[in-house]
């Protein structure tokens, strides 16, 4: 039987919808899913706040350096390890590097890497997983072989070996990072697709003659959106941290170029003695991840009708 509370709920929130007599047939505009999701997203303060924060951080990272007279390649030989001041807004490090310029430069790299890797990895997982689950047969077998193969390949080693060849080519680096974190999600997506495929609404769409890729796009992926959004938001921070640890071992972003990861690595020993070396890049990273999470949560609620009216 149904759970007691479920049985108690009124079977429809809406009164039985009798067609209003007198209303002309054409007068009600039909709102599609796209506009409805946008509307539901716009109703959520935290989502809008998160979005605003992301935009501000990007602006700060890319426009901010123009207002400072220091560049991340400059060294101020009169000021080593000075605290934040009018001259150096975020202070300087032991080589006289202006921390504001460095943080902004690092943020540019990390925002690009974090967001792009998340989109690539989750997108790839969604496409491969849903295709394998939906089409089944040989498509499924071949795609899952690839996934399993990539799971057992030591990704760190591959990146380390290949790092020589992509010096300066950060897009390739992003692609490599993405290539090593999507497989588990792809497997989960495949499993969920197998279950969704048997649903009657998917069958109904098939019997209407809807093309298969459209069914995946319109019915399978939207119903996995909660999973995919959570995965993408986690991937943003995973990618930034993975990049930092690679840089720490001398792969990835190399000096004189800077990423938030390299800054954090350099600054962590001084976190208590010269806190500005660590604090500013760390706060920037936290704000970025927080903002992305807020947007993700709001998007998930906007896409999920059972979330009701989000506050």
């Amino acid at each position: 039987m149904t759970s007691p509370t479920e049985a108690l709920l009124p079977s429809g929130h809406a009164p039985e919808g009798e067609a209003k007599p007198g209303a002309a047939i054409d007068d009600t505009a039909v709102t599609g899913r796209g506009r409805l999701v946008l509307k539901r997203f716009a109703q959520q303060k935290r989502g809008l706040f998160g979005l605003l924060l992301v935009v501000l951080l990007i602006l700060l990272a890319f426009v901010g350096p123009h207002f400072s007279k220091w560049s991340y390649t400059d060294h101020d030989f009169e000021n080593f390890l000075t605290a934040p001041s009018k001259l150096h807004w975020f202070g300087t490090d032991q080589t006289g590097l202006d921390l504001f310029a460095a943080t902004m430069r690092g943020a540019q790299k990390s925002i690009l890497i974090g967001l792009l890797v998340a989109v690539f990895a989750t997108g790839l997982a969604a496409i491969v997983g849903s295709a394998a689950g939906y089409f089944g047969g040989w498509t499924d077998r071949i795609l899952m072989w690839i996934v399993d193969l990539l799971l057992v390949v030591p990704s760190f080693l591959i990146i380390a070996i290949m790092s020589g060849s992509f010096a300066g080519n950060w897009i390739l680096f992003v692609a490599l990072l993405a290539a090593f974190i999507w497989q588990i999600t792809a497997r989960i997506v495949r499993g969920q697709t197998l279950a969704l495929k048997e649903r009657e609404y998917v069958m109904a769409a098939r019997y209407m003659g809807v093309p298969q890729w459209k069914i995946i796009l319109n019915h399978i992926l939207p119903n996995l959106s909660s999973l995919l959004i959570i995965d993408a938001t986690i991937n943003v921070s995973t990618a930034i941290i993975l990049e930092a640890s690679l840089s720490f071992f001398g792969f990835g972003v190399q000096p004189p170029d800077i990423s938030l990861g390299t800054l954090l690595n350099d600054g962590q020993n001084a976190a208590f003695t010269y806190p500005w070396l660590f604090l500013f890049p760390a706060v920037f990273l936290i704000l970025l991840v927080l903002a992305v999470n807020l947007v993700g949560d709001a998007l998930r609620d906007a896409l999920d009708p059972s979330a009701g009216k989000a506050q």
Partner: protein
Amino acid sequence: MTTETTEFISTGKIDTDSVLTVEDLSVTFPGGDGNDVRAVRGLNFSLRRGEVLAIVGESGSGKSVTSLAIMGLLPTNARVGGSIRLRDRELLGLDDRHLSDIRGKQLSMIFQEPLSALTPVYTIGQQVSEALLIHNDKMTKRQARDRSVELLDLVGIPNPRDRINAFPHEFSGGMRQRVMIAMAIANDPDVIIADEPTTALDVTIQAQILDVLQTARRETGAAIVMITHDLGVVAGLADRVMVMYAGRPVEIGTTDDIYYHPRMPYTLGLLGSIPRIDAQGGSSLTPIEGNPPSLATLPPGCPFVPRCPLAIDDCKTIEPPLEPIGRSGHLAACIRKTKIEQENLQVNDVFPAPEIAAAAVARIPRDERKAVLELDGLKRHYPLLKGAVLKRQVGTVKAVDGIDLEIREGETLGLVGESGCGKTTTLLQILELNKPQEGAVRINGRDTRELTGGERRGIRRDLQVVFQDPLAALDPRLPVGDVLAEPMRTHGMNRKEIERRTNELLRLVGLDPAMSSRFPAEFSGGQRQRIGIARALALTPKVLVLDEPVSALDVSIRAGVINLLLQLRAELSLSYLFVAHDLSVVRVIADRVAVMYLGRIVEIGDVDSVYERPSHPYTQALLSAIPVPDPVKERQRRRLLLKGDLPSPANVPSGCRFRGRCFKYEALDAQDKARCENEDPPLYEQGADHKAACHFAEAVMVV
């Protein structure tokens, strides 16, 4: 038996004979916004030994919560008031340890879903023994096992001594429900609560289970509280009936009083909405319009007012109390009850059945109409494989084994049979529109074997489907407007057209076009099924395939959807392939009916011939298994109970595939039996448009 029991309700005297007494029971769940959900309000009843009380109502009427309150199984946030006494012991306020002593010993429960009520990892024997051992410290495992075998034998499990070692997944749904009953009666309880015990089962199995419940009552002398949404099921079983609405009893009385002299409009409505196999075909049902009220925001007056055709202004001011009317023990909560009594109003006086005009195409004789869907010797066999790496075929599942059907324009064919008989496979094979393994499918005269991809897409416009579960059939993430627009977008209609058609469709199925931006979860079950129907109609198809479209709905809602289907058929000249296991629904809607058994059609013909002169023993059994909402008729009816379950389609018997369960075969002499065993019966003519696949077919009246 009921005079003293019912006396208690009207006089308030404590009846010492009663095993279970519920007084002024109320259950409230805290809700958001300060609106508490008042699930049960002011419930009184008492049960005598061996009595069967049916509690009837729609989903959300509080009947299940009542049963959970008695069992002490409500969630901890529920506030329970009043009193529940089992013999002289107050159950409310007992802690879980004491309740556990009572549960399963004096008070036991049978749940709706037999598939999930047994633990999959223990054998049947272990689970029945556990029920025994937990309440009998002195019993040894050996004794418990022997007693389990006895119990399983009592509830009709064949070879209980062997089957006791089987796991739940080896049992069919009906068998598991029997095991549940065996566990419920294991300790000779005083009261058995059965919460929709047959809703999830096929009609033939339902008849068997109701029979077992009778046996259980006879053997243990337990009183039974039978909870159901279907007044039809309890007519032959219950002594008294209590009708609940919005958490309150609105009418209570002996079964005869409730069925023959209902005095509350809601009871009248429930009775009118049941499709009856003893009614003439083609007549519409009387739906109760609207939905039950939200239990969190109840209006001050009678909660049934918005749906009641007899409501007057006084009804809106105070909620009427339960007051005696007519014979002793009959109580109804309605201001208008005396009017109903004096004028002796019947169902159709209160809820007029909507007039549904016949379709224009129906006036053309059947032979002159075009065939829109034809099946010709359709077969679907699945190989049964064994082995992990090197698979070898160990058998064949004959899901559909050569069937012929034909549906003409404007006609409805009902395809009926138990679950597992191949109905769904047939239907999917038609909808796939690809080349069948054997045989042919023709839509509008086009053979699906010769279609190209583009043509197949074109033909999909003419053939659409409505699924059983309206919630599963609608994408939860798509607003209703998009759900309806999808088929039209796929077939290349432009935006303006789609928008116009969406509104038109919603209106057509009786919904407000302003609701198009809502999600499916915001609608009630009946409304969702209307949306499913609207989507199927979007491309103006010629044939609708309806896969049990009303079996997931409440009885009162069901009538509305059936009427809608009747009306649409007339207005749009549709043809239906109506798949169902419920023969009574088919009687209302179908022109012709085909009865399917184990991948074959065993009887086919026009509805009146098949229902009035069923000739195949299987059809006779199916028809006799359907309860009629008429207690006198029901008590006198002879049930043709089928033995056991449908055999596996992987292991089809030789000759006549029905003979293993056939009562006619049993009665034959050796020579005739041999014929059944060796000769596969073809469809023999039984009359004009009536065929049955039985060597010894003869018409029997069973309704």
